[in-house]
């Protein structure tokens, strides 16, 4: 009989341990180092992998990881080439010629060519408001060879590069020919981009976590990063987007070091985070958001311009901001139609704002509008605190001006359904709803759907004003920035007369992150993960 010595037992034990531990070791080796992995929580879940099919911001966050754009907005809001190397415009300003830069490859290893770019442009333009606006002026988009293509215009259009570079949704992401030829009304399901990250489908669990690995074949531009322009050099091995809907849990997870980044910590929890030495707060989108109060032009009383003008004298933006943000440094008032801090910000026709809240004036205007005391339906999205607070305060302001307000509480999903109804307010329609939009988009008369005043085809509320539309088109073809600013002043001057909507304030959303997360680029609408370091 073989004697089992202590040494044999020890060796056997170690061997057994090694065998049992092998799967874990293999797993650990296959995973990128935690030191180069960022776990990030954002404002929501990714609704679909197709950032063209939806205008949801989370889809654009996903798009920014895996896809690339022809142009990108830099830190000064100017468009700069990204996938494009050389480009030029003809003397008559009607033909734009672009040459793709060297080294562009899809995640499957094949080269990016104009055969991919042109259908991508067409599919994006079929869905995006800015793209549609541009395509109305496009005569032809054609390829000269695999790397060169041109956009030929029917008339001068000054926004070609701006539209291709914009960060507001839908962003003009370039897809492979195969996906780009998908019907624009159907979503793309395969995710093969040419961007700085690849989607790791093995580790991704839809609705729970989305795993993005560094694309080793990505060739960044040589310029320093600025906005979403410049070199997209990736310093991380992996970024994990975690869907964590509970804000309190996300804040606790950040403090415990279980996540590295939280995009939308609630304002009331900021002091808790500011007191944590392992956490820092940064404003990544300095233009933030602008809160919209949207009246319905189709039904009384807001089918009458006097009633809409009355709203201007009712709303005290400072009170609205205080209701949601306290005395926060993150909120402010905004008399400009284009938001504060944007290139188009101006002070035209803002006496109503300077004069402050004036209930008597509002009452007088409602009277002149022939308001007969009928209920005014104000939709209150109770599950979104800022909108809910603004709705309640607005209801009170309306009541003070003698308006019979019917505050209808519902969740946001319900608001987005009901706001599309053109029925009378007492038959399932509405009079006012409250929402918000990005500061960058608000600053652009063309790219924000809510700026359109084309009546039936306009955004919810269906404002109609021919002069407004004429000036928006004039703005779009303006040759210089100064010319655009001048037209923007005219647009605003007119807008505060017919009042397509009004604002209840502007605020920035500070993001919270562990102190070892460095170099996050401040970009409106998208959070770029290139250039970021975890120290």
């Amino acid at each position, binding site marked *: 009989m073989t004697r089992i010595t202590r040494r044999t037992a020890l060796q056997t034990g170690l061997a057994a341990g090694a065998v049992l531990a092998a799967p874990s070791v293999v797993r650990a080796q296959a995973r990128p180092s935690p030191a180069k992995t960022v776990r990030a929580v954002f404002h929501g879940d990714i*609704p679909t992998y197709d950032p063209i099919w939806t205008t949801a911001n989370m889809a654009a966050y996903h798009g920014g990881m895996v896809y690339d754009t022809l142009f990108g907005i830099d830190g000064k809001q100017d468009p700069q080439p990204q996938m494009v190397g050389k480009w030029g415009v003809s003397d008559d300003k009607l033909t734009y010629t672009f040459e793709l830069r060297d080294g562009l490859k899809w995640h499957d290893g094949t080269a990016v060519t104009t055969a991919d770019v042109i259908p991508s442009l067409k599919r994006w333009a079929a869905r995006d408001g800015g793209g549609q606006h541009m395509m109305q002026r496009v005569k032809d988009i054609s390829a000269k060879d695999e790397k060169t293509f041109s956009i030929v215009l029917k008339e001068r259009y000054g926004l070609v590069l701006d539209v291709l570079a914009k960060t507001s949704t839908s962003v003009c992401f370039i897809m492979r020919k195969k996906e780009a030829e998908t019907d624009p009304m159907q979503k793309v399901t395969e995710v093969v981009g040419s961007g700085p990250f690849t989607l790791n489908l093995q580790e991704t669990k839809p609705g729970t976590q989305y795993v993005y690995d560094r694309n080793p074949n990505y060739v960044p531009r040589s310029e320093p990063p600025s906005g979403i322009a410049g070199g997209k050099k990736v310093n991380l091995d992996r970024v994990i987007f975690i869907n964590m809907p509970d804000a309190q849990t996300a804040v606790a997870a950040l403090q415990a070091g279980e996540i590295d980044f939280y995009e939308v910590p609630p304002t009331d929890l900021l002091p808790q985070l500011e007191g944590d030495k392992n956490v820092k707060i940064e404003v990544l989108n300095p233009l933030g958001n602008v809160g919209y109060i949207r009246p319905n032009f189709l039904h009384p009383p807001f089918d009458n311009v006097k009633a809409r003008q009355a709203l201007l004298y009712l709303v005290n933006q400072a009170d609205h901001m205080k209701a949601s943000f306290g005395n926060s440094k993150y909120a402010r008032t905004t008399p400009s139609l284009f938001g504060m801090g944007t290139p188009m910000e101006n002070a035209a026709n803002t006496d109503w704002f300077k004069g402050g809240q004036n209930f008597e004036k509002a009452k007088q205007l409602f009277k002149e509008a022939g308001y007969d005391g009928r209920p005014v339906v104000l939709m209150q999205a109770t599950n979104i605190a800022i909108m809910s607070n603004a709705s309640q305060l607005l209801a009170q302001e309306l009541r003070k001006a003698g308006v019979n307000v019917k505050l209808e509480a519902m969740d946001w999903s319900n608001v987005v359904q009901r706001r599309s109804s053109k029925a009378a307010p007492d038959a399932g329609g509405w009079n006012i709803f409250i929402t918000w939009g990005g500061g960058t988009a608000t600053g652009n008369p063309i790219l924000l759907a809510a700026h359109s005043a084309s009546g039936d085809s306009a955004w919810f509320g269906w404002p109609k004003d021919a002069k407004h539309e004429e000036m928006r088109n004039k703005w779009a073809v303006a040759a210089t920035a100064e010319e655009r600013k001048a037209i923007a002043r005219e647009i605003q001057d007119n807008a505060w007369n017919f009042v397509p909507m009004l604002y209840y304030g502007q605020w920035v959303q500070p993001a919270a992150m562990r102190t070892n997360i460095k170099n996050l680029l401040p970009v409106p609408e998208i959070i770029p993960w290139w250039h970021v370091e975890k120290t």
Partner: protein
Amino acid sequence: MIAYIVRRLLSMLPVMAIVALFVFLLLHLAPGDPAAIIAGENATPANIAQIRKALGLDEPLWKQFLVWVGSLLQGDLGRSIFWGDPVTILIAQRAQPTASLALTTLSVAVTVAIALGVTAAARPGTLLDRSVMGFAVMGFSVPVFVVGYVLIFVFAIQLKWLPVQGYTPIAEGVGPWLRNLTLPSIALGMAYVALIARITRATMLDVLAEDYMRTARAKGVAPRPMLLKHALKNAAVPIVTVIGIGVALLIGGVVITETVFNIPGIGRLVVDAIARRDYPIIQGVIIVFSGIYVLVNLVVDLSYTVLDPRIRY
């Protein structure tokens, strides 16, 4: 017995049919539009209408219902509006965290609750009894999410003993699996402990007052065997009934607990689906949960024959 089981299983069919009808009508008659959510905030009304058409949401309600029921009869719960994945696969992917949470909660809660209930019944009217009942009232009154946040603050943030959130599959080790489930199980189990402890105490007090218990005491049976062997066995039927009924409480609690502790289970799946109006997922999960609830109660009914030989089907 087999005939009884078959009868009960057949009786499930009309129950599930009624559940299916109610779930479908409740969801589709309630306001909310998945197409508008998919399209996003900057979408025009025309965009939303196009998406609604592409998803078949512009079809008449009766037609949508017939299509869904037809698929259901073939065991197909449909596909997620947002992801396009089959609902059965989405539920299967999320089943392990939910089953783990339910299992650990049930194990801990039943053990603790019966121990507390028996202890309280053994010393009625004492400080211990009042403390147990006070705890039971509190456990039943405090919402799951409040208990969850307090546990997170104390044990994850302050003491750093356990993680705040997340789930580790059991395949990655029992230790990490349990670490992630400890706080959620306690939070979810509180109400369950309260419910079972109260019914255990009340039933035990009734049983302890029976003549045969007095006889056992007179014959000199020691207190512990008397409580555990004689009284608890005779009190088991109502306790098991409450455990079965409490599964509904557990299912409701799972939805909240998984959200608070960020556990990627079926509860989270349905919460996210409700926010987006992803009808097929909501319908599928409710159908599955209803089926589980009915089956659990069948198992409870069958267990009576084991616990009480007088009961026969």
